[in-house]
């Protein structure tokens, strides 16, 4: 959170200068790959700073979703590679996101993917089996070239699917994604909740940071026992504060004529025909690639 707050301060200034500074900041903060706390709000920040933010959000959501479906449906390592490269091109080259930042976001699901795929590639047995095996004292760990290949292809597929989704989240602010869902007739209640939760995340993060800092400044995280106690106090305090905030919010909304239905003004961004053509061409290319290398 600290680093994303630092970045946000540079975001306040407008125009080219701010953009430059923002990128400069990202460079400072992302000299290494891997993720740290507060990555969630960093994604939000990247979405606002993206150069392809001005593209029509419906186009981006539909495009990335179709790409995801194709990537999974065609189940072909060449298609997966093409998707990974295509999405990286969109996010990094077109979107202007520094490569290190992109990789750091991609690394977030890496642990889960590895854990999941290792279980497929590697197996246990009491007898020596497979092409390669390793005696562990109580049994054998074994695998084969076929299994390893299957594992690698699965990883490629998952990464392709994820990079399609990440392309969307790194170029479209949440409010716009919610707007697309609203157009897709997702129930109103869910849309309103999503809007409120999104706004609330940042308010509660602020509140939490203030509480944590004030506890920290009074040695509230001195040792393990105190830390546990402080964590509990902060958590219960958060509940009270969020109830109060909810009340204050409701009051402010009513004062501006809220009558039970949340409707927000949305910016309308025009479709660009050239984007549509390129997207269709990309889909066709993926399908052809899938069929040719079947």
């Amino acid at each position: 959170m600290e680093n994303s707050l630092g970045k946000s301060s540079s975001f306040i200034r407008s125009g080219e200068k701010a953009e430059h500074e923002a990128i400069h900041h990202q460079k400072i903060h992302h000299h290494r790959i891997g993720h740290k706390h507060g990555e969630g709000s960093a994604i939000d920040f990247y979405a606002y700073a993206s150069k392809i933010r001005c593209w029509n959000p419906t186009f981006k959501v539909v495009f990335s979703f179709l790409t995801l479906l194709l990537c999974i449906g065609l189940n072909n390592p060449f298609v997966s590679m093409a998707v990974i490269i295509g999405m990286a091109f969109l996010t990094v080259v077109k979107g202007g996101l520094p490569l290190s930042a992109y990789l750091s976001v991609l690394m977030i699901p890496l642990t889960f993917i590895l854990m999941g795929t290792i279980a497929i590639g590697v197996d246990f047995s009491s007898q020596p089996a497979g092409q390669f095996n390793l005696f562990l004292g109580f049994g054998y760990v074994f695998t084969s070239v076929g299994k390893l290949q299957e594992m690698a292809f699965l990883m490629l597929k998952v990464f392709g699917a994820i990079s399609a989704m990440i392309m969307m989240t790194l170029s479209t602010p949440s409010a716009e994604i919610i707007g697309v869902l609203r157009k897709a007739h997702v129930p109103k209640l869910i849309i309103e909740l999503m809007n409120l939760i999104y706004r609330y995340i940042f308010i509660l993060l602020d509140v939490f940071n203030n509480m944590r800092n004030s506890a920290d400044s009074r040695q509230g995280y001195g040792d393990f026992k105190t830390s546990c106690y402080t964590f509990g106090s902060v958590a219960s305090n958060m509940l009270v504060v969020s109830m109060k905030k909810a009340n204050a919010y409701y009051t402010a909304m009513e004062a501006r004529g809220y009558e039970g239905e949340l409707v927000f003004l949305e910016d309308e961004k025009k479709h660009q025909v050239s984007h549509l053509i390129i997207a269709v061409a990309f889909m066709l290319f993926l399908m052809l690639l899938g069929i040719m290398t079947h």
Partner: protein
Amino acid sequence: MSEPILKISDLHYSYGTGNPALKGVSVDIYQGEKIAVIGSNGSGKSTFFLNANGVLKADHGEISYQGTIINKKNLKELRKNIGIVFQDADNQIIASTVMAEVGFGPMNLKLPREEVLRRVEEALTTMNILDFKDRPPHYLSGGEKKRVTIADIIAMKSEVIIFDEPTAALDPLNAQMLEEVLVKLGEEGKTMLISTHDVDFAYRWAERAIVFDQGKIIADGTPLEIFKNARILAQANLKRPAMLDVYEMLVDNKMIKENNNYPTTPEDLKVLLEKQFH
């Protein structure tokens, strides 16, 4: 004088806990007035504001806007015409972009989209934050958030604008900006009520001051009358504005002649002194 734009008579309100927060408040507010609402913490100012806007429903008493008594049916009319800029901007900003936020009020008024867009543009231009249109509120600074909350109310085109302690949590530069905005809104003929603890600000800006103490209005008059009344100041725990003290000291020490033209800012005093000695 003509008919009051907002007439509040004998307003009583108590919160759920049973503690009365307002105990019989009556006040007439006229078109274009600049009113400072002063009083210590917990004296009922905010409760009064929320009642005036119709968010809180009075236990007893009557509110009429431009001669029409407000009931459940025309409550919306009251909310449309009386806007509140809340003290804490983070409690007011609800949407996730500045444009959606400023458009929230007009959208609730069920205006056509073009009209909403026009008003948002206008309000953002007035507050000089058109550049922030697509920004999310969590990447704005405190002063910028305050501007957004004021633009919120400007976009609703409320006749009466209530500011709940607007200068709290603003740095001097932003406080200065706020005063400029207040002048601008004053020129447009808006009626404004501002609650504040800054007596110097109340003294130089307001045409009328209302003093709250323990849920009642204990004084209502020009800022000069009120700040010269030691009894009221003591009862409401108020300080005297520095300019008033300075002026009276100068008069007492025969440095300037008393002429009932009280200076409210250092600039005014400078003019006065230059007249004396040149």
